């Protein structure tokens, strides 16, 4: 089974894409409207700079090649909520193309393209007699992200969307309930022919719609039938998809370039835009680039992004083993303490440098780091640390099995940790004890 998604995300600008109407919740229908978003004859679009910037940010986040020059196109489409019967979107040269996005840090999902476009208004059915239209949404900026059919199950599609939304929210400060504001067109094929389920709202519904389609298409194929290429819609209440139109009745969009806006040379703009890395992305990148366990990377990033940055600094200067030993070890253990007294993480670097050059020993380095971070004196610490380390060493001497068990499963350390905590009666924080126990066990391996 192959699943590809076309994901529409509302971009959090203050004004609409091509006019200055506010994007905030309107007090009543058709109150945030002007000649441009109502498509009145004589009106004209002017592009909101922020929309272009957001588009570039998302293109970068998705690992797309950002276009040097981008422009807009007109997609002709007749519907009551489409005020011009034309949607200004991108066809040739969208903002970004050809990206890769890693699901769970591992599975690559190819991104075909990302483009920016305007949202139509909203229609309301009134019995079977007529419709009522509210154009407040008309002209709200959207990014459309199109994936290759690289997703293999409905659950995976949902997981992908969840991860994507959390990343997008981090990069462009997407407010509110991002899960519900996301709209998807889902392409799914079990056999050769694919169907498109249009305009599904929310993660849960995407999974439901895809699961329904999976079952439906499988049944058709098992019965020896053929899946017809068509557009379907999802009925949220009944949880089923319904055929809307067959392929041969697809609208002819007749794309042409939009001459009212001209071109946008965005090469320099794109170079000047730096995107914030999301915690998840940083975790995945650390795990990948420094070949460390994803759990450790996550632990670093969740404690603090600055801690993870110290890890990177140390790894680059003194190698990953030193970064793992010291930053994931004592620096991490004392981080909260350091933050509480307003210390700076750079203070630990001299000690690590001296250890790396062989000037000081393991124990000395651990002590120096703790002093630098907690502000305690070497002397008082010397005695205390001596106590702590003596207790641990003594216990390990008596129970050498713990060291060999630890090599197979690091949970073996828990026995020693429990013993030491009890012996010292709250004199040391659990983080300190855990760090010291693990460090001493590892030095005996």
């Amino acid at each position, binding site marked *: 089974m192959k699943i590809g998604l076309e994901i529409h995300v509302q971009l959090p600008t203050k004004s609409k894409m091509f006019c200055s109407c506010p994007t905030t919740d309107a007090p009543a229908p058709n109150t945030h409207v002007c000649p441009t978003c109502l498509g009145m004859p004589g009106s004209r679009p002017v592009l909101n700079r922020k929309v272009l910037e957001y588009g570039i940010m998302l293109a970068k986040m998705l690992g797309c090649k950002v276009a040097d020059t981008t422009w807009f196109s007109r997609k002709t489409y007749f519907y009551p909520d489409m005020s011009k019967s034309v949607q200004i979107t991108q066809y040739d040269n969208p903002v970004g193309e050809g990206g890769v996005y890693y699901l769970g840090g591992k599975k690559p999902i190819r991104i075909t393209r990302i483009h920016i476009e305007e949202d139509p208004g909203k229609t309301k059915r009134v019995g079977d007699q007529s419709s009522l239209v509210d154009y407040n949404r008309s002209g709200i900026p959207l990014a459309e992200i199109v994936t290759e059919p690289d997703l293999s199950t409905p659950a995976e599609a949902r997981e992908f969307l969840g991860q994507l939304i959390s990343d997008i929210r981090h990069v462009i400060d997407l407010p509110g309930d991002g899960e519900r504001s996301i709209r998807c067109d889902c392409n799914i094929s079990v056999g050769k022919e694919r169907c498109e389920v249009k305009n599904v709202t929310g993660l849960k519904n995407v999974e439901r719609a895809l699961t329904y389609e999976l079952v439906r298409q499988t049944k058709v194929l098992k019965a020896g039938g053929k899946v017809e290429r068509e557009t379907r819609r999802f009925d949220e209440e009944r949880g089923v998809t319904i055929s809307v139109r067959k392929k041969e009745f697809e609208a002819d969009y007749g794309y042409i370039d939009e*001459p009212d806006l001209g071109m946008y040379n965005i090469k320099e703009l794109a170079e000047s835009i730096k995107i914030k890395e999301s915690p998840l992305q940083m975790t995945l990148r650390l795990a990948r680039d420094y070949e460390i366990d994803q759990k450790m990377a996550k632990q670093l990033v969740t404690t603090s992004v600055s801690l993870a940055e110290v890890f990177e600094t140390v790894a680059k200067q003194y190698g990953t083993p030193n970064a793992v030993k010291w930053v994931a070890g004592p620096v991490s253990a004392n981080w909260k303490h350091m933050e509480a007294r307003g210390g700076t993480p750079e203070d630990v670097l001299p000690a690590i440098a001296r250890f790396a050059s062989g000037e000081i020993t393991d124990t000395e380095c651990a002590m120096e780091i703790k002093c630098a971070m907690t502000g305690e004196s070497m002397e008082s610490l010397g005695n205390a640390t001596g106590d702590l380390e003596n207790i641990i060493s003594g216990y390990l001497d008596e129970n050498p099995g713990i060291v060999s068990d630890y090599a197979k499963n690091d949970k073996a350390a828990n026995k020693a940790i429990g013993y030491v905590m009890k012996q010292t009666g709250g004199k040391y924080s659990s983080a300190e004890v855990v760090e010291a126990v693990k460090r001493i066990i590892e030095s005996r391996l």
Partner: protein
Amino acid sequence: MDRETVERVARAAHIKLTEAELEAYSRDLNEILSYFELLDEAPGCDDYGVNPIDVCDVLRDDEPRMEIDPDLLLKDMNTYEGYVRGPRLS
């Protein structure tokens, strides 16, 4: 441009044609399109733009503003409780 294509085009353009109109427009369009075959002979190029002059990088700041009272915009529209009335959806 055969009859079927003219029908397809008319459907896409949301224009209803009577039998007589279909015939007349087919004739006109075919005459025009055969003249347009001249384009096939014309030289091409790569560096063409969207406009006859270079229009580049014209952007607006993201500042919300209402310049025209929406009530004024709606005054000549067929509305119901602030909504614009439209035809049946399906």
